[in-house]
């Protein structure tokens, strides 16, 4: 039974991590890249504005960082909760 509680705690931490990651994921693509582009258009980036940069470069770089961060964090979480392989 205690094992089940432990694994529940592990799963909840995982869900929280996923939620935070997905908020960032949506913010840089749907947000900065599309909907919020007009609101950050005053920030110039090389002949155009920040939103354009996010749509064509920035979002991809953030996606990369997110996946590696998640993998690193989860592998640590696996060990902390004793569910690693």
């Amino acid at each position, binding site marked *: 039974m205690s094992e089940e509680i432990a*694994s529940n705690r*592990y*799963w909840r931490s*995982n869900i929280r991590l*996923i939620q935070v*990651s*997905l908020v960032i*994921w949506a913010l840089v*693509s*749907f947000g900065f*890249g*599309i*909907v919020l*582009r007009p609101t950050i258009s005053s920030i110039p*980036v*090389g*002949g*155009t*504005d920040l939103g*354009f*940069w996010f*749509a*064509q*470069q920035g*979002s*991809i*770089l953030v*996606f*990369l960082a*997110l*996946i*590696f961060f*998640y*993998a690193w964090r*989860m*592998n640590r979480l*696996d060990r902390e909760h*004793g*569910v*690693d*392989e």
Partner: protein
Amino acid sequence: MSQFVINLLFVGASFALYIGIAIWARAGSTSEFYAAGRGVHPVTNGMATAADWMSAASFISMAGLIAFVGYDNSTFLMGWTGGYVLLALMLAPYLRKFGKFTVSEFIGERFYSSTARLVAVVCLIVASVTYVIGQMTGVGVAFGRFLEVSNTTGLLIGAAVVFAYAVFGGMKGVTYTQVAQYCVLILAYTIPAIFISLQLTGNPVPGLGLFGTHEASGEPLLQKLDQIVTDLGFREYTAHHGDTFNMMLFTLSLMIGTAGLPHVIMRFFTVPKVSDARWSAGWTLVFIALLYLTAPAVGGMARLNITEQFWPNGTDGEAVAVETIETDPDYNWMLTWQKTGLLDWEDKNGDGRIQYYNDGSEAMAERAAASGWEGNELTRFNRDILVLANPEIANLPGWVIGLVAAGGLAAALSTAAGLLLAISSAVSHDLIKGQINPRISEKGELLSARIAMAVAIVVATYLGLNPPGFAAQTVALAFGLAAASIFPALMMGIFSKKINNHGAVAGMLAGLAVTLIYIFLHKGWFFIPGTNSFTDADPLLGTIKSTSFGAIGAAINFAVAYLVAGMTREPPLEIKDLVESVRVPRGAGAAQAGH
């Protein structure tokens, strides 16, 4: 040495390399055929997955779509990379823990229903076949150009090569071959981009050069681009023109479609551990990002080069002379591409010059009338040719052009082969062994896998002759179908213990059917031209184009599944235990074949 011979040498050498590797790593057993014995390192796996993933759509088609539309087509960039975040966080590690070979096996077992498995197989086949049609379009363009034959002949030759190639080996042969293909395609994509970026901006990193200074004019490159395209009546490159809602839906469809595509997910079954599945998704995106960060630079810079070639005296000067096109070696690319039927021009007003401008623009009407222009004289410029023609347009050395030809073919072939493998395993492993004849011999299974490949390639080639769009657009439809059918079922299978067999089946069927019907209404029934009732310019529902409908289909899938599951009996206890066990990495072990 003529360019034709150089191309042939590069393509020939790259093929010899792939086939050599395929023979060396030939699949011996069914387990090796599907999952390469699970001995694949995350970085190797990431590279192979990247090659598998980056198809004719990414390599040949995408930059062209960005070049001629500009900012609005950033959807492809965000959509096709953002899906990896979903895959890494929400699917890959759990499916690896589950430890079976195919996506439909997971769906069948999690939803304790052979019907669910069957429906998943159907969804996979529909999405994969649509995907292969898009690949065949790209294969036709690439083979047409490098053999200097018509697009149709190129497609038929390409289909034969793809088939021979996919039959050779299974996943193992394909995994190591795809590592080689990745190297060829990424070099082929980035080397010309680096050259062009250096020519235009002096910056060797194309992704930075795009936001750098155009050395010839001293202005920022994108500003210069905006100016010359608007001078000719085209829409501003960096501005947002289309509908925002449709743009978001389209991006979302591509993202969740990425995470629902069988041939990509299958890759994450081939790593040794659950933690490796997480890293592997990251490595895959690293290798993909190398191309995706370069693609917008390729598009923008090519648009600038093309426009300047047609207006060598500036956009307010005289247009290029027909005689120059026919005799100047700088314009040789136009003559070679004309042979494929994908590029054409016509001196409508007989002034001996080719005026390339937007004849639909009111702002241009005055200048056109004053100068005696009678419409845009660049009558055809198929967007799928842009990347392959790009090094020739920029006047790069012959070996770069040969390398790009080899890279384009590598991209199209590797994905087509991966998809054919996914289709054949769906038919032989899930359909025949799983449903029709569980006692089929290993030999019989391999034979039926190959027959399924043959049928798929014939259908895709036939439909590829009259494709529903440019390569990347057709592929986008496939993503919509995967998004609407497979992704929600997988996600609910992992993240909810409440969704039962009836819910999953009803959800997948509803998502697939509605999306498929919406696509057929706009693109023609079974993609047969002329049978459509609507067009994407004036879609059935608001501003939602058929390529963007996958996200709506996915929402329908989720809603129907929850509704039906709420009204029927909860999943049994052992299924809840299965979900629990999928959620923790410990005890993953090696995956097993069959049941």
